[in-house]
């Protein structure tokens, strides 16, 4: 990696030329316009240039057609989220311009496909420069293929960014290296057509309005949370997955359907989520490391299964890629609104919240091991953005991965026992586990209350002992549960608290708050349940803590108050309109609050 593409020495318009080390691009149009492809070509270009990347998309709930937008942030420093404004917009229709306009940087640039006419007037600020290029018409008229809009558009954009034509072409060739030669040349022709049109439209080679930096990052992975989580599960020895298609969790099913069979495993598409979690429970009972996954409406259906795991003491990872609810809600929109559901029910479990895409890998391994250790449910709380958005992360340390089988007994160990009781009362609450097939380990597993042998019993003393035994399992691992990520001034009187996808935005906001004179410390908990002391202490130790979350009722604030943190110190910042927080939102709100206090 890290091939430097030298920016051209700047030509005319030097005064207006901006140099970017952090740029936000949006490409939008009707679904099928190839927006996603242009974004991914740009992605490859910036990756080549050593930038850190973050990419997301926004697809309307129409089925085909309908507005589709792809976003890309490329920055020299890692960002972990989109920026506050859009610097460059490639728009294939009026709607794209209208949607983007409020978020456009005042000195931004728009490339507009003018095949059907000029862009809408009065929408964009005057300071924004617009290049009108009939991209669609060119593709159809000159190349007879509408699809080639993407390479034409790419060509134009490289001229705006001041990328050397050869370097751009190199990146394109690299990106398409696996397609047939003829197809490659067609794409290159389209790219060149884009360049030619750029020439004619005020974007000559060597005289670009903008230039971009060199990144210089080491080799990274560009990966989404769902991919990283799936990969972690595989590496942690996960061999069975069951799910049911649902946005935004489907990619986990797809990923594992492709990969697990290569390792002797299986990923099943169940008839519904009730079935999915019970399929996984069945596999888990045999000792196979298993997982079930879904999103809001399906996760709620999995609750009966989760309580069975808690009661019957079966290890399973359950991943919930949260989306905007309630009910069917807004399937493609971000929210963090299942926390209440994740912690409901009177049984022990652990709820983990990966901090970012890279952490999804680590946490998946941790969750898979932990489920074996506590012989119970471990829930992983992802969210739409963390699940589906891709970003550059450090390569994973595969050689460091270790498996923990907890108290699973080998056949020899069982043979050496005088007596075996599946639900033996132990100090750490975990009972030695014999899986079916082992001679001498015959046992009864049930979701009813039962005695040490697994025979159903409602005897009060036994009941009490069993509830307490199960509770001890969590206490025995509490010290090992993932601590949160912290940034900022450890002594700051003001704190920011938020999990998952909110983390990077808090980090960006903190930098700016510090500049504005408000020092803060950030805690991004990675264990939501049990509520760790560090979280309660974090709040107790501060004058005021802003609890930042994507839901309407402040579920995280509710959770940590229940865990003992003083509610009166907390100020909720809630966003539930389906769009992600921007750093600027947090900064503005907090500065205003702090000024008024």
């Amino acid at each position, binding site marked *: 990696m890290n091939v430097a593409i030298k920016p051209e020495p700047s030509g005319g318009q030097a005064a207006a030329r901006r140099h970017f080390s952090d740029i936000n691009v949006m490409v939008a149009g009707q679904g099928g316009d190839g927006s996603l492809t242009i974004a991914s070509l740009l992605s490859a270009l910036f990756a080549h240039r050593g930038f850190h990347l973050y990419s997301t998309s926004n697809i309307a709930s129409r089925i085909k057609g309908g507005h589709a937008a792809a976003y890309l942030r490329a920055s020299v420093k890692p960002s972990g989220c989109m920026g506050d404004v859009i610097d460059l917009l490639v728009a294939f229709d009026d709607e794209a311009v209208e949607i983007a306009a409020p978020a456009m940087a005042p000195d931004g640039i728009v490339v507009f496909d003018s095949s059907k006419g000029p862009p809408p007037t009065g929408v964009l600020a005057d300071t924004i420069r617009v290049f009108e290029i009939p991209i669609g018409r060119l593709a159809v008229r000159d190349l007879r293929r509408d699809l080639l809009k993407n390479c034409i558009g790419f060509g134009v954009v490289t001229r705006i960014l001041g990328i050397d034509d050869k370097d751009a072409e190199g990146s394109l060739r690299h990106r398409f290296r696996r397609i047939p030669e003829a197809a490659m040349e067609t794409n290159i022709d389209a790219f060149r057509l884009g360049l030619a049109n750029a020439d004619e439209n005020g974007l000559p080679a060597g005289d670009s309005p903008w230039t971009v930096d060199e990144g210089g990052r080491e080799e990274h992975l560009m990966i989404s949370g769902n991919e990283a989580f799936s990969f972690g599960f595989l590496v942690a020895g996960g061999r069975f997955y069951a799910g049911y298609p649902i946005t935004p969790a489907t990619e986990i099913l797809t990923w594992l359907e492709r990969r697990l069979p290569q390792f002797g495993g299986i990923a099943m598409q169940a*008839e519904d989520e009730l079935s999915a979690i019970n399929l996984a429970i*069945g596999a888990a009972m045999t000792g196979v490391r298993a997982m079930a996954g879904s999103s809001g409406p399906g996760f709620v259906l999995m609750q009966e299964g989760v309580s069975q795991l808690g009661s019957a003491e079966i290890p399973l990872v359950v991943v919930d890629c949260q989306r905007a609810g309630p009910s069917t809600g807004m399937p493609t929109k971000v929210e963090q609104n299942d926390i209440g559901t994740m912690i409901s029910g009177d049984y022990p479990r652990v709820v983990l919240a990966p901090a970012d895409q890279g952490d999804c890998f680590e946490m998946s391994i941790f969750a898979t091991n932990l489920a074996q250790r506590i012989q119970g449910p471990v829930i992983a709380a992802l969210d739409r953005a963390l699940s589906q958005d891709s970003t550059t992360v450090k*390569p994973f340390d595969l050689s460091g991965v270790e498996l923990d089988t907890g108290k699973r007994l080998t056949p020899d160990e069982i043979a050496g026992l005088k007596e075996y009781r599946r639900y033996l009362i132990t100090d750490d609450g975990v009972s030695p586990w014999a899986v079916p097939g082992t001679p001498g380990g015959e046992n009864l*597993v049930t*979701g009813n209350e039962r005695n040490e042998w697994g025979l*159903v019993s409602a005897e009060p003393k036994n009941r009490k002992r069993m509830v307490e035994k199960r509770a001890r399992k969590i206490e025995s691992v509490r010290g090992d549960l993932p601590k949160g990520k912290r940034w900022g001034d450890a002594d700051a009187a003001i704190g920011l608290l938020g999990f998952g996808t909110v983390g990077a935005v808090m980090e960006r906001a903190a930098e700016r708050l510090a500049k504005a004179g408000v020092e803060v410390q950030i805690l991004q908990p990675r264990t939501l349940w049990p509520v760790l002391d560090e979280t309660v202490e974090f709040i107790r130790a501060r004058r005021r803590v802003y609890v930042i979350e994507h839901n309407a009722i402040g579920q995280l604030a509710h959770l940590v108050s229940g865990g003992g943190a003083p509610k009166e110190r907390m100020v909720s910042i809630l966003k539930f309109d389906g769009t992600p927080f921007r750093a600027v939102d947090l900064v503005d709100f907090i500065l205003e609050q702090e000024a008024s206090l």
Partner: protein
Amino acid sequence: MTKTYTPAEPIWCAGCGDFGVQGAIEGAIAQLAIPKHDIIIMAGIGCSGTLQNNVGTYGYHALHGRVLPTSTGVAYANPELTVIAVGGDGDAFAIGAGHFIHTVKRNPNFVYIVMNNSVYGLTKGQDSPTMDAGAAHGIDATRLALSIPGASFIARGFSRWSRQLQELTVAAMEHVRAGRGFAFLEVLSPCVTYHDTYVTWEGMLENLDDDPTYDPTDLAAAFARGVALEAQGRMPAGVIFRSDGGAGRKIPPAMALQDIDPARHIDRYNDIMSSYAV
């Protein structure tokens, strides 16, 4: 030998049909000489869902209605086990109806014995989906199974006909152990407390196993026979339908027994990781 749990005494009412089912299962296990540790009895919730406690094998008490997906998970993850799912008609055809269809379709290798008493015994006698209520007929689960592509073994026994019941149980277990797929055995197992049907049912049954002209591999004929018998107020018993279940189809490997040490797979894991490199 390690001492483990002592099988429970059945908690059924005296005369409950479920005793007969337990007897048949125990008889079949003995007949086929399968070690108890290689068997897992997966049970639903209900009176019937206590059978697993009484036999001495591995046992599991599922969520109400979910015994089929759970058993499928077990059977896929560890094909070395002999998996016998048992449960009630409420469990199977009310809350579990969707899973029933999909299990027949998926055709996993395990036996499913439904103790049909036409009531919810454990919750004190409400009608189940198989109850004939006046003119309205209850669901005939054998016919339901016939309508699903993938069906490979469909039989009906009667808990009082113990010899045949054990034969059917053995046949179901052999079907499964030969990798032919899902063996569905409905047992008419009367609830003496809420709906005592020993006499009525015995009078209604026509034993197809006694009919040399009956061809259990003819799907349409099997269905037609059920319809015709129903019109006479009767119903079939015995092996109603069997196919080779696509014998030889790929059975997933025994994941439970695999080596998952990451060191063993590190090269392939690295390959996957490099596909994300930028």
